[in-house]
């Protein structure tokens, strides 16, 4: 058993890859088998992860297992396995939530003709995500970072024949690449200054010499953060995430809610030691701003998935802000609970969409409580959790974030509270409009509950969303950042928020209640949205996402597009035209001009001959 143990994490990592390869190469024709392989792989991964979790739960320090990938000069890149509380927790989230979503997917997608491709991509994603989670060094993280990006690309563009899906996939990938641009430079910078890429070694050297990055510490930190900005869709690179909802809904749940987008936050926590105060300050502001911006936009969205997408953005902003205000543990905690309830919400939304034959407009739903009871109740749990109503998980994690903000930055605390209120508002708006009231379309009138294979994952996730805040996740994480933290009893946990930061807890609850009440008053029985009339221009701006897409496309037009036009112009006309054709033309012209000498007239020939003799004589005899 002990011999086997070191290999287990490798199996966790590579099982999904194997399943992806197997599907791509062999079982493309057999849809059921493909799905089975993929689901089997991730479930086994989950079981192994759970085993690892219990095996290592109390271990103090687990040494990295590494394989050398490339080693040239003083650059040595390893592919390895890092196991600590952070990665163990993330392993469970990725494989656990992932398993649920894989199973759900088979129900959701089984009619699609490209199911095999779907599951292969999903497995590839799982592999990549696990690679990030287990990474022992920056380079490995970057590798899997990119792979995650590409699997996301493949899955967003799964229905590639839809122009919108194809465009969204492209946009997501390129926006992520913008972030990765900074990330890679940051990595190179850290490597050049600190001499290592390994998290362990880096942490040691930072402990020994906090000033190791010298003057460029802030810059390096922010460049690294760029990576998170892309992956976790922070302002100003947030624009891709809402569009990414073009992908199948389970994909949105897994990648664009629970796991991949959280990778940025995970990375920030993983290398938290690297950031100095100015960098953290900026990070926290960006996080706070993103949270607020997204929450405001979410208020006026009508597409069920887009509302959830903006809420994801907003919550990610929350987490990033938490990291920025010095609460990585809070960020991870919120990440975990968010993974549960946001996956739940997305799957619930998927269930509704599935039942309504791909209708996503909440104003064409309604009255689903009777027709889809499981979906209804689980979605309600998700909403409550997200809105931060105690004792659901969201309350505890959000409170941890609020507490961290409260300690460090009053303004950000106010922003965060405001966001909490907005969150409660738009979530209940969604809930009231989509699930309650009168049926607003034929489709919603004839909806049916989804099959068991889809509702079962909902139920599992709902349970997690309820108890997620109470099972000790926060203390487990805390071990990484505050090793001396002690275990607490369940009862203590239940009331913990009121214990150590009563103000934050009170404000948090208050905000949720206010949000809920306003939503109730406006949308409890509404058949159309009353807000646009009241807010006017602001509402239109919110609906149009504050015109970020337009601004960006304008920006791209005057930068990249213009540069490419210019380069193409220079290439076509100056280099290829003027210079190359010019040289060619001039040469030919010379040739044509020169041969005019050959008049065919013998007398002129004789004259030229004699003139030539004269010139030669002159130069040789009189010039030298």
């Amino acid at each position, binding site marked *: 058993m002990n011999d086997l143990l070191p290999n287990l994490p490798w199996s966790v990592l590579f099982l999904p890859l194997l399943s992806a390869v197997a599907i791509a190469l062999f079982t493309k024709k057999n849809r059921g088998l493909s799905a089975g392989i993929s689901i089997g792989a991730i479930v086994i991964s989950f079981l192994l992860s759970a085993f690892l979790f219990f095996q290592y739960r109390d271990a103090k320090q687990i040494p990295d297992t590494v394989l050398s990938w490339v080693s040239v000069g003083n650059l040595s890149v390893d592919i390895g396995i890092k196991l600590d509380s952070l990665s163990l927790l993330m392993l469970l989230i990725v494989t656990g939530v992932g398993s649920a979503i894989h199973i759900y997917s088979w129900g959701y997608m089984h009619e699609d003709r490209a199911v095999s491709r779907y599951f292969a991509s999903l497995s590839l994603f799982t592999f990549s995500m696990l690679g990030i989670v287990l990474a022992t060094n920056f380079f490995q993280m970057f590798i899997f970072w990119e792979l995650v990006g590409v699997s996301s690309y493949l899955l967003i563009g799964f229905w590639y024949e839809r122009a919108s899906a194809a465009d969204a996939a492209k946009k997501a990938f390129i926006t992520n690449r913008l972030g990765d641009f900074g990330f890679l430079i940051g990595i190179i910078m850290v490597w050049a200054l600190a001499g290592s890429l390994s998290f362990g070694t880096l942490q040691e050297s930072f402990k020994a010499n906090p000033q190791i990055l010298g003057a460029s510490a802030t810059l390096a930190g922010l460049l690294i953060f760029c990576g998170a900005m892309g992956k976790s869709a922070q302002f100003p690179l947030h624009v891709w995430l809402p569009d990414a909802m073009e992908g199948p809904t389970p994909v949105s749940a897994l990648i664009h809610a629970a796991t991949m987008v959280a990778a940025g936050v995970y990375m920030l926590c993983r290398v938290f030691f690297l950031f100095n105060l100015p960098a953290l300050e900026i990070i926290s502001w960006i996080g706070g701003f993103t949270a607020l911006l997204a929450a405001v936009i979410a208020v006026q969205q009508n597409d069920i998935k887009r509302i959830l997408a903006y809420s994801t953005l907003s919550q990610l902003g929350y987490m990033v802000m938490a990291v920025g205000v010095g609460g990585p543990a809070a960020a991870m905690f919120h990440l975990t609970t968010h993974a549960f309830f946001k996956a739940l919400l997305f799957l619930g939304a998927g269930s509704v969409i599935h039942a309504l034959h791909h209708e996503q407009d909440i104003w064409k739903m309604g009255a689903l409580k009777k027709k889809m009871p499981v979906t209804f109740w689980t979605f309600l749990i998700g909403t409550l959790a997200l809105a931060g109503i105690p004792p659901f998980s969201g309350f505890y994690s959000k409170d941890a974030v609020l507490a961290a903000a409260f300690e460090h930055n009053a303004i950000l605390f106010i922003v965060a509270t405001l966001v909490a209120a907005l969150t409660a508002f738009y979530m209940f708006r969604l809930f009231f409009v989509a699930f309650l009231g009168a049926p607003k379309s034929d489709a919603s009138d004839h909806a049916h509950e989804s099959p068991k294979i889809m509702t079962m994952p909902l139920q599992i996730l709902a349970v997690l969303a309820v108890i997620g805040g109470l099972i000790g996740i926060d203390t487990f994480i805390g071990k990484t950042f505050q090793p001396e933290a002690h275990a607490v009893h369940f009862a203590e946990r239940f009331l913990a928020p009121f214990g150590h930061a009563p103000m934050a807890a009170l404000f948090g609850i208050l905000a949720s209640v206010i949000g809920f009440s306003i939503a109730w008053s406006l949308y409890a029985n509404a058949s159309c949205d009353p807000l646009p009339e009241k807010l006017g221009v602001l509402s239109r701006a919110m609906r149009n996402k504050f015109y970020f897409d337009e601004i960006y496309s304008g920006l791209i037009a005057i930068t990249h597009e213009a540069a490419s036009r210019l380069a193409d112009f220079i290439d076509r006309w100056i280099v290829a035209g003027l210079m190359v054709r010019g040289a060619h033309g001039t*040469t030919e012209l010379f*040739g044509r001009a020169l*041969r005019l000498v*050959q008049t065919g007239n013998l007398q002129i020939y*004789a004259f030229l*001959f004699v*003139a030539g*003799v004269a010139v030669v*004589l002159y130069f*040789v005899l009189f010039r030298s």
Partner: protein
Amino acid sequence: MNLITLEIAVVILALAVLLGDLWTPVAHKRSLGYAAAGGLIIIFSYSFFAAPAFGSGFNDMLVVDGLSLFFKRFFLVAAIIVIFIALEFADRIETGISEFYSLILFALTGMMFAASANDFVLVFVSLELVSVTFYVLNSFQRNRLASLEAGIKYLILSALSAAFLVFGIAFIFGTSGTTNFSAIHGLLETGPDFGKNSAFLLGILFVIVGLGFKIATFPFQIWAPDVYQGSPAPATAFLAIGSKAAGIVLLLRVLFIAVPQVALHWNTLLIVLAAITILYGNLCAIPQRNLKRLLGYSSIANAGYLLLGFAALNQTGFAAILYYLCGYLFAVLAAFMVISIVTCGRDSEDVTVLAGLNQRSPLLATVLTLAMISLAGIPPLAGFFGKFLLLKAVVEQGATNSAYYWLVGITLIGVVISLYYYFGIIRAIYWSKEPADLSPVIVSWPARAVLIVCAAGMLYLGLLPDRAVQQTQLAVQVLKVNSPAVQIQKEARHP
């Protein structure tokens, strides 16, 4: 063996062809050509089996050494192939085909004597022998105005250059008191200070004018395109290779046997002449459509490349000249052979006659392509190695005078320009737009054999250059040169 056995044999062969004509019925005139070629092949082989002893004779007027023997064989090969070209061309010469063969043989004699010249008298006589026969050869198609025109242009300009040559010889004789190369060299080495005398230098320059005309180097190149275009193809071919090589060997002998001390100071002149010649030939060739005229310009450009070897002023350069000439021989003669065959029965000599040649006769197309690639100086053919050697020789000299680097640069430009028109010919063969008639071209067996020999020659010189390089290096050993670069290198080796 006598010093001039080979020449005597050629003259006897020429006379035999002339006489044989009297007893040969018109229908069998062709056999005279085969007889001439066969005779030359025997003489050529004979030159290997019984190599003439080295030495000099006729009052030191004539010398047989490695260089002369090399060129004699060179001229023999050229003449053999030219006679085969003439055989393909024979139907376009109305009368006197046997005279045509024997004139080629007489010109050959002149060239062979030129290879051995060690005295300005012999220079003049051998050169005039070549010139006068070429007057006739060039204008042999008396009913074609172009041929006559070519003949007359060649006549006047050649006579003009001969006048300069003779006048130059007079001055050399007047200042040095002798016309013998060895004697002049000896006097320059030890004797009175006439090496700086401008009358003497004028004489040398006038001699260079006369020889430069033969080589078609700038500024005496003006005749080449017209004459190449107008003359019958075999005559042009022989002019392009034989007459040029005769000029080259004489120039080598004059500059580096008779007056090496003077030549050493003329590197700038040689560099400038080489550079302008290369540019002139290549630039003018760009818009050219007439095949023979194109080759005329190309011949000017190649004269420029050959001058590189002179400008380098070292043994490597001279050896490279010889090597380059060998490669040039096969390429140019192959090209003219193909042109003779392709233009048969056609008025035009435009590149369009090549259209679809690859379908009409793959052999012709392949050989012409190879010839063009070789002329363009692209591996693995002879032209590449020749240019490689020439450039190497010039760069080697670069340490003494940075002008050599400019020369290299201009040569490269010239080579690149030349790619354009050589590839233009290849393009005309393989993918010309106008669909020509695609009737197969019948190529006689002797012509096939010659073409294959030419192709093999180009490939051999390009792929297995070792033996030929050694031969050329041996041949140029008689040329004395004390180039500054060599001196510097010698000093560097023995500080």
